[in-house]
């Protein structure tokens, strides 16, 4: 593992690109023996790929999601996680001394199908353990000026300057730095109804119509004002106005309704419950249902952003963490299944979508009283039919922690971005400039 890490860093330092690492251990070429599935070969990267980002917000304790189940790390894990450690009997085996938490609903099935690429030990140099610094760095993906994000710069580069309004969407009400470009940003849409300029309140009156209001925003953008607040307001207003003008938003600004036969967490009859027997939250599944509805409605979106918070488990981890895993895993599995039922003009939606999940950091190996504090190296994963399932990071050596007792990262997070930009979003020639330098690609695509 150490050799492998040094190798990656050497490649990064020398600027070697397109080093396709292959999966080690687990998934890849064999069924893991859990979840009842059979490994299926990956399909080619589709012609019209869609990326769904899932932000695991708060810094997740992935060490309890993929805990050691054998080898030298196991004893250290058990010593430092005396009360919160996961019993090996409840894990399915990913190989390489790594287990998969049984509370991560549905992920064992997706893994057994060979649909999951795990990037364990992902992180960054010189982490400072701050949520907010780390979120900014994960969002920017590079030390770029003006606080742009890696997907915002993708939008700057790939989207039509005057069109493509709905090509980058977030279903959160905020706009994370990840989605901010220098010249344009993603559109935020949080519901399937009422997405319309409020001219409906003006029925019966003669003026003003939407175009009159748009005049205020549009002319602001063509005028010479350089005031940042003025320009930001005009850009945001114009984005909303142009987005709601899309024909997919019908009368009253509503998308075509859609019913799904797939159960999601939060649905009354969803079989997996919280530890206390109550229903899981729909915090993520409601976002996923909206994304599925938008794809089914034919919105020309290529990238979606979603978020599940609550992972900052300083306390009460024994209860909160299993519930969060059930919500996250169950929602991802439900979306994956649901997409198979959607036919789009560019093919079956399940073939087109890859889900990428990330968190700003992992958590401290040594537990506190009932929880875990901020750590460093994390876990990302990608799910999709074109993904070559397996392990693509490097599990941190728990006997070689840093001075604060945190794991040392093994894979630079920008290698994940480079892989996705290059091999999923079709940015073969621009990836390195979007990220500022060359990062080795991971082999799951």
């Amino acid at each position, binding site marked *: 593992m150490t050799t492998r890490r040094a190798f990656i860093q050497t490649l990064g330092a020398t600027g070697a690109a397109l080093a396709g690492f292959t999966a080690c251990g687990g998934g890849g070429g064999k069924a893991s023996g859990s979840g009842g599935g059979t490994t299926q070969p990956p399909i080619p990267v589709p012609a019209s790929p869609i990326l769904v980002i899932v932000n695991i917000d708060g810094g997740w304790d992935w060490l309890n999601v993929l805990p050691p189940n054998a080898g030298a790390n196991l004893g250290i894990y058990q010593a430092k996680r005396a009360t919160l450690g996961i019993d090996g009997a409840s894990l399915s085996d990913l190989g390489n001394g790594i287990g998969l938490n049984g509370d991560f609903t549905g992920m064992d099935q997706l893994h057994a199908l060979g649909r999951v690429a795990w990037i364990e030990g992902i992180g960054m140099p010189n982490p400072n353990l701050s949520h907010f610094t780390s979120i900014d760095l994960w969002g920017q993906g590079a030390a770029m000026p003006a606080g742009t994000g890696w997907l915002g710069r993708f939008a700057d580069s790939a989207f039509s300057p005057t069109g493509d309004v709905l090509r980058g969407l977030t279903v959160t009400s905020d706009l994370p730095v990840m989605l901010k470009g220098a010249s344009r940003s993603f559109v935020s849409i949080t519901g399937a109804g009422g997405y319309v300029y409020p001219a409906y*309140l003006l029925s019966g009156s003669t003026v003003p119509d939407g175009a009159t209001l748009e005049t*205020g925003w549009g002319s602001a953008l063509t005028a010479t004002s350089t005031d940042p607040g003025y320009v930001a307001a005009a850009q945001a207003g114009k984005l909303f106005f142009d987005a709601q003008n899309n024909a997919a938003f019908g009368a009253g600004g509503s998308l075509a309704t859609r019913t799904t036969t797939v159960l999601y967490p939060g649905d009354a009859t969803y079989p997996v419950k919280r530890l206390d027997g109550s229903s899981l939250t729909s915090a993520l599944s409601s976002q996923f249902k909206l994304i599925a509805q938008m794809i089914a409605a034919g919105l020309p979106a290529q990238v979606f952003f979603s978020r599940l918070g609550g992972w900052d488990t*300083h306390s009460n981890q024994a209860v909160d963490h299993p519930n969060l895993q059930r919500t996250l895993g169950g929602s991802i599995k439900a979306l994956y299944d649901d997409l198979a039922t959607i036919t789009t003009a560019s093919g079956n939606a399940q073939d087109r979508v890859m889900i990428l999940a990330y968190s700003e950091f992992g958590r401290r190996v040594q537990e506190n009283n009932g929880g875990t504090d901020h750590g460093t190296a994390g876990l990302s994963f990608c799910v999709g039919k074109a993904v070559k399932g397996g392990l693509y990071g490097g599990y941190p050596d728990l006997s070689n922690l840093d001075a604060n007792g945190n794991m040392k990262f093994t894979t630079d997070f920008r290698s994940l971005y480079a892989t996705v930009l290059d091999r999923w979003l079709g940015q073969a020639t621009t990836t390195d400039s979007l990220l500022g330098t060359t990062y080795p690609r991971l082999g799951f695509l």
Partner: protein
Amino acid sequence: MAVLNAISSWSVADVQHFARRAGFGLTPADATALQAQAPGTAIDAWIDGTAYDATAFNTALLTADVVTEPLVSANTSAAGSVDVPAVAAPHAFLAEGTNAWRNNLNTAQALCAWRMQQNPYAFQERMALFWHNLFATGWHKVSNAALMLNQFQLFRSQGLGKFDDLLVAVSKDPAMLIWLDSVLNNASGTNVPNENYAREVMELYSLGADNGYNQTDITQLARALSGWSFTFAEADYIANPTNPTQLTLATGRFKVYDGSAIAPDTRLWWGGAATTSYSMHGTGTISLFARTLDITTTANGWAKGENAVRSIVSVLGANCAQFLAKRLLTHFVTSGYSAQDLNDVAALIQSSAFDLRAIMKILLKSQYFFDPTNHYSLVEGPVSWVVRAARMLCPPLATASTQSPRGYPAWRLVTNSANTFDQTGMRLLDPNGPNGWKEHTAWLNSNTMRYRTKVAAALTLGETRSYSGTTYPLFPAAVTTDWFPAAPASAQAVYDRLVALLQPAAIPASVSAAWLSALWPSTFTWDAAAQTKARELAFLILCSPAGQLY
């Protein structure tokens, strides 16, 4: 450099700039009246709250609604009851009948908004809003709206004191103790402390990331603050006026759980029974910022570990002053400050010994604050934006409190069924995380602008919502003499008056001309149709890019 010398005279435009930033705006008539006073004494009185007669406000606060502050929340039941008289409707912000009293975020938000709109001592509410963003605490984890309001009241009552005292008070506040896990921070014996609060109190509340401290300081401070919690007694509960057996906790008394008994012993430990004597506090000394501190001392009348919190300001004063200067500048003056401006304000903070009243009196009287380049240099936050528009367009307290039904905005419906604060980007009393909200241009994206258009429509076009079979206007804004003291004689006069009320940044003449020609393509007559058009024109002004600046 930031010239912090006080201005000696001011224009109406200066007064309005001051009132937008240090309050929630003044009507043109009130601004003119204030401008007649010398700025020095007027600003002192504004900050001290000595220029107002608060009688009508206090009366309205007491009688307009059963949902007065201590009565907002209930999600627990316990033995005993507290006799609280019910007050008859109509309610100040149309709280939900029998459900009004439950642990309800939207009701608590509504109360805060109503106070911001009506409180003549606007600066007190403005400072509370500022501190709420800095010490951002979220209802979704505290799970108790009464404790959230209890914290908000702390910002009103101590928001103009010394910053180190405020930092200590916030560290002892029940909502904060729950929010960042202080109540679960156990460092007794060999227990590993929970460092959640220790990290964020330095990173987010007093210093900024990596500004003068390291990870070791975090673990040491966590040790000093272990066992910080609170106790409560029956008198700390409040009861549902319509069902006195429903009780919820509304406040608590700070206590270090160091193994000592509590008195009187009828008080309850947070998370335990009255008979339990918890020992969660660490012992011995810590090394914080390269100094040794005894975390068991109670010298100066301080709680055990309080010396550690206070050393953030006493040892790292320069770092803390820089941090606080950035936050004050970004909220009150401009985000476009220079490094020298920042240093100048940080020096002011240190030379004023972190006394917020003294700092704010100098900063808000300064030539720097009033520099024309700082007028309209900030994007207004959504709560301020909505409240200020309501102050301009809805009936003033003296009128509203005598109307039947009362002419208050239906804040309870604005916050809930209209999702106003959620979707415009500032879910008051419930930020996503302890970092609060980034300000200025970060307030704006396609979704928040979409919802600003919806709120602007509600404010100006008479949008209504139904609740329990009754239809209420979200904002009772009518084209009254408050809007137009005299009948306007032309379309331009309508526009000029609305601009004077709503006070947007400069709107390009080409844009306003396009609006007026669309609204009044031919002759102008001040009739009912023209009054509808005046509403529509107000809507356009509020939605325009210039309408987001203040």
